[in-house]
């Protein structure tokens, strides 16, 4: 590497660390602990989903058939591409490529926003089809199963799980917006790329949640 143009000129090491690699690894371990509780949070939802699916397989199949598989597949691709641009952002920060870093990180935010917009249209479609559990529950295509009311349970789980996932994406986009401002002020670079990498961990984790949600909700 020639001359550093982004971030601090020298690695900044807090006084309680001896070396920069030691500092970096503490960041990584702390982030993985945070993600461990996130795994347990979504794990509880997935467990509840699995138990009810085992209990009411017909209602689950009928509920899943109401979802738009093409939209789900398209949104999965959008999220995967955003994961790629996020990983590339870390690479561009490490290798001191300012324009590519800003472009790649911007694309990550754009793809995240596209995902949420598509999700909003999908929720609206469920509303028009009378598939909102509770007082508005009035399916235009009632399922031909023994107890059609059980399909409500599927949509309760659907809205909680995809809603919590979308909420995590909104939080991610807010953090990304703050990071983008810092990025434009050239706060990150080869000597300070850990914030970009740690945000990437969060973003990839949200992608992993969708990797399981997509087949379990749309494809069963």
């Amino acid at each position: 590497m020639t001359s550093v143009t982004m971030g601090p000129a020298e690695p900044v090491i807090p006084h309680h660390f001896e070396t920069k690699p030691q500092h970096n690894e503490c960041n990584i371990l702390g982030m993985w602990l945070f993600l461990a509780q996130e795994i347990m949070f979504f794990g509880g939802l997935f467990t509840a989903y699995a138990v009810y699916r085992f209990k009411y397989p017909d209602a689950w199949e009928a509920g899943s058939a109401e979802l738009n598989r093409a939209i789900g597949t398209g949104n999965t691709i959008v999220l995967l591409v955003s994961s790629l641009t996020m990983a590339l952002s870390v690479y561009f920060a490490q290798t001191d490529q300012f324009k590519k870093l800003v472009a790649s990180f911007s694309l990550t935010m754009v793809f995240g926003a596209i995902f949420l917009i598509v999700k909003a249209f999908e929720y609206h479609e469920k509303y028009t089809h009378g598939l909102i559990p509770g007082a508005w529950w009035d399916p235009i295509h009632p399922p031909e199963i023994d107890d059609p009311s059980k399909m409500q349970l599927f949509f309760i789980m659907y809205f909680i799980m995809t809603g919590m996932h979308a909420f995590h994406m909104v939080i991610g986009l807010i953090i990304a917006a703050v990071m983008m401002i810092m990025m434009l002020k050239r706060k990150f670079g080869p000597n300070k790329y850990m914030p970009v990498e740690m945000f990437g961990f969060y973003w990839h984790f949200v992608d992993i949640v969708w990797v399981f949600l997509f087949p379990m909700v749309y494809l069963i």
Partner: protein
Amino acid sequence: MSEEHHIVPWKNYAINFCVITVLMFLTVWVADQDYGVMNLPIALIIAIMKTLCIVLFFMNVKYSSHLTWVFAGAGFFWFLIMIGFIIVDFTEFGGMYTNSLPGSQSAIGVP
């Protein structure tokens, strides 16, 4: 505590993305096939493969220290403990909770 941080070439990220995308389309294709009760396990196995690709290569765990491997694995291990015990509980004693509903013969508290 650890060695110098590893910079992964961008081509590795691109290859990893292609592998995950292929696995994603494989998931969609498998969903259209009729493997009976095996459909869900197959879909979950492919999802686990995609997760491994993301964790190992996008999150760079492959190039991290053994301590990081332990921390990264801990969350997934705790999740397996949780879902494992709950599923065992549900399959062994699930009927007790169902039958304890009003109007049905309860298995709880009945000698």
